[in-house]
Each structure stands twice: as C-alpha cells, then as structure tokens.
C-alpha cells in the first residue's frame, strides 16, 4: 500500500512505491533521499513485533461499517459480552475510534485509568475475562477532543496493538469508526503478519446505509480481509403498545438480505430496534444480561452462535 506522509508534495508516489524518491514530484521533498535509498520501503518493524505480541490471541475480529451511527460499537460490546459469558473464554475489545471513543461508556468503565507495567499497558478489565482498551481512558476530561490527522491516529493504533499487555486471549474484537481510511488501513496493515480472522460488517436496512456498506465490502476485498458476514441492525421496531412493526429505516432496496445475496456473503442476522439497547449502553450495562428474553437479545445470541464462534 502506498504511504503518503503528511509533508509529502502533491503527486507523491508513496513511500513504498518503486518510484519512491525518484519521480519529478519528489524534487525538494524532505524525504527524498530517504525514499530513494529504499529505507522507507522496508516494512514497519512494528508489524513483526505485533505478530509476536499477538501470538497469544487465538481469534481477531474487526467490526466495520461504511456508515456511521449503525451500531458498530453497540454490536462490538454485545459481541464481547456474549463471548465472555463463558467464564473460560478470554475476550478483549479494542476501540480504535480515536475521535469518538464510545466503548468505555458502553462497557461501564468510563473514567477508568490505564496502567503501565514492564510488560506494557494493562487494559481495563470489565470482568476477569473481559478487557477493554480505548483512547477514552487516556483522556482527562469528557470534553477533550482528539484533533489528530491520520499519521498521529495511526501511531496510536500501532501502540494499542504492540504495547498493550493483552495476555492469552481467545478473542480480540476491534471496533472501528465508520469509513475506509487511516484507522482501517492501519488496523489491516499492522495486523498483516498477525492475521485477522475476518470482518463483521454492520448496516441498517436502508439503501443510504447499504450504499456505504458496499464500499466497505470493496475495501475488505482490496486488502484481502475475509468478510465473516453482515449484521442488519435497527431492523424494524415493534410498538410496545399496539405491537405493530414499523420500518423506521426502510429496506427500500431489499435490505442487507438482498445485498448479501447479490454479493454472496452470509447474513449473520437481523437485530430489531429496542429502546433498552441504547438505555443499557448509556448505563454501561450488558443488554444481553439485563433483557435476555427480548427479540433483540435473542437475535444477538443467534448471530454470535452463527459463524463468529469459530
């Protein structure tokens, strides 16, 4: 993947390109001699370090969506809780949404601190077998904004993968912000030697969401990231009074079901809207534990049991 540093001139061929340091655009660039010598093309040593560090992690799952606000973090948290409900399964949730780190609040550990030891940063434990890491723990105040350009975000993600003392894990779940940009490329790049099992893609039923999700699926294809399957979130709302179902986010083009058929991808499940999901996220509680018999909880459980538990 071509890497364009933030101080690169226009038409920079990318530091890992064959033409690095040699094109006319490179004249006058501060990195020109470095690129021309071939040093910049060498793979980042962190990739191998991360492979070694994560050798004790059996499965790595990335949760993606092209679209914002579809429930990635909510899903990631519920997936983590579901997997950790078996006390013998070691689970961790890594939040790489650097600008909008919601995971600490959703997991009920907002305001907790991260500690450093000889073996690295220790994540925050929600349960004995459920750990969380997020930039949220490194920010002093809930008003602090992380106003970082791509390269700084990438550096943080590298640290999260290389320097956190995860220990022995059965599952590492990586929650991402929406998009196909720095965070997503960095996660894939830094885990390229450690190997990602695959991605779970979250969408809502409407075409405005699917439109972006198809791009996310293309991204996965481009970077050779296997797609475990698609989850359709906010899939209908049953009125608690009259029990009629409304399609608030209407599947005008067939929803995730049609998209999955067209693209040959598994539809892992559909989760209906339920006000108790958001309420439990706000309170930092596990929706699956609080309302286990709800249609939404049963849907989540079905999804987890489907293809995710390898």
């Amino acid at each position: 993947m071509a890497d364009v540093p933030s101080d690169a001139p226009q038409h920079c061929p990318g530091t890992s390109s064959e033409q690095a340091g040699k094109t006319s655009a490179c004249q006058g660039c501060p990195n020109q001699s470095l690129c021309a010598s071939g040093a910049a093309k060498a793979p980042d040593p962190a990739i191998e370090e991360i492979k070694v560090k994560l050798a004790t992690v059996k499965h790595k799952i990335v949760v993606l969506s092209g679209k914002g606000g579809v429930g990635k973090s909510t899903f990631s948290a519920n997936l983590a809780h579901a997997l950790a409900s078996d006390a013998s399964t070691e689970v961790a949730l890594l939040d790489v949404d650097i600008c909008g780190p919601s995971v600490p609040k959703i997991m009920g550990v907002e305001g907790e601190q991260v500690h450093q030891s000889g073996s690295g940063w220790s994540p925050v434990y929600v349960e004995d077998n459920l750990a969380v890491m997020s930039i949220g723990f490194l920010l002093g105040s809930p008003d602090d904004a992380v106003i970082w350009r791509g390269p700084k975000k990438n550096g943080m993600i590298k640290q999260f993968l290389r320097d956190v003392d995860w220990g022995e894990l059965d599952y590492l779940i990586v929650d991402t912000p929406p998009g196909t940009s720095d965070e997503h490329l960095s996660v894939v790049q830094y885990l390229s030697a450690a190997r990602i099992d695959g991605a779970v893609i979250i969408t809502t039923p409407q075409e405005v969401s699917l439109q972006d999700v198809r791009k996310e699926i293309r991204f996965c294809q481009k970077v050779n990231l296997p797609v475990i399957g698609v989850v359709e979130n906010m899939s209908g709302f049953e009125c608690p009074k009259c029990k009629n179902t409304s399609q608030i986010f209407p599947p005008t083009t067939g929803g995730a079901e049609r998209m999955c058929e067209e693209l040959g991808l598994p539809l892992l499940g559909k989760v209906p809207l339920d006000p108790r999901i958001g309420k439990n996220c706000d309170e930092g509680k596990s929706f699956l534990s609080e309302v286990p018999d709800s249609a939404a909880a049963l849907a989540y459980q079905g999804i987890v049991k489907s293809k995710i538990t390898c």
Partner: protein
Amino acid sequence: AAASVGILDVDLCGPSIPRMLRVCRPEVHQCEAGWVPVYTDQQQNLALMSIGFLLEDPDEAVVWRGPKKTALIGQFVRDVAWGELDILLVDTPPGTSDEHLAVVENLRKHKIDGAVLVTTPQAVSTGDVRREITFCKKTGVQILGLIENMSGFVCPHCSECSNIFSKGGGEELAKLTGSEFLGSVPLDPLLTHSLEEGSNFLQAFPESATFSAINNIAQKLLLHMKDG
C-alpha cells in the same frame, strides 16, 4: 425570492447526499471558472458537490489516508464554481480529524458563519458531540446551535411515542456547554423513505410534525445569519 444554496459533501468515504437529493449519476463538468457543481433543481437554487460524482463505479471504495482527503477537500473549496450563493452548507463525516481540519482551514479565509452540531439523544452520542464542541472552540468556529435528531418515534398505527434512542440528551448537552438548542427532530419513516428515494420530504409532507421541527430549526438559523 428563493435562497440560492450550495451543499459541499466532504464525507469522502461515505457520500450520501447525492442519493438523498436524487442526483446519483451526473458527470462533473469543467468551465472557465472551475468545476461546475451539480444542480438538483430546474431553477438552479440548490447546487451540490460530492465525491460521489467523481466515482465511475458507485460501489467503489475511496480508500484514502488523510493527506489525500485533505487535498481533495481543498480542491472542492477552491475549484468549484459555485457562483453567487446565499448559503454554503458543508456536510461532514463524524470525527475531529483530517476532513474537519481541512474544511476549517480552507474556509477560514472566506469566513465561516458557524457550525450546527447534530446529536441523537442518548449519552453515547452526546459523549462524542461534547468533543466536537471542543473542536469548534479550539478551531475558532462559532457554534450556531445543537440539534437533537431521532428524538422519539410516534407509532403511525396507535400514536404511542417511544423514545427509541432516549430523549432530551441534546437539550441537556446544549445547556451544559452553553450552546443554543435549536430543536428536536423525531424519527419518521416518511422522512427516511423520502431520503431513500431522493424525493422532497418538505414538499410532500408539509403538515407533518417533522416538517415543523425542521422548518423551525431552519428559521432560527436564518435569523442567526441575518444577525451575524
């Protein structure tokens, strides 16, 4: 007379506005003054520029790191021949990163009236929007106000109101941060349906509560811009 409005869609990875305004597959032409924006209506009162128009294949992923996104946003601001506009609206993706910095840096010399922040009611959302408020304060962008979107759902069958994403968080956040609360917009399947088809919801459902909500917010913002 109708206002002349431009929309600049800087969500490069997930450009949704073309579909919402039913202008999916036009080409972007060049004129002497630069790129011609796409007009969504006959009278040419609403113009739009989006990366959506520059992609050959609508499913093509824009897999760009920050610098490339920053460069295109700079081009959008410099090279689009908007002509005479009363208002330029810039729609951004979530976050406080490259796109947001690029917009502020490129528009600063043209004077930014301010930012409208959109949240949903629940704490998980307002928790992120607090940080967006800090972004505005740090970059010197005035906050025109906050909007609470997806604020309650009225069942079309029995009129029962359900607060699917909680309620009131937006108003609380506005109070907490000393920002103006512009209003709440409910969840409305008719609105989401219109956006799917790119039809004009405001024309089709002028009697709806959603129309009133959006209209009230628009009127408040217009007042701001008259005063400002």
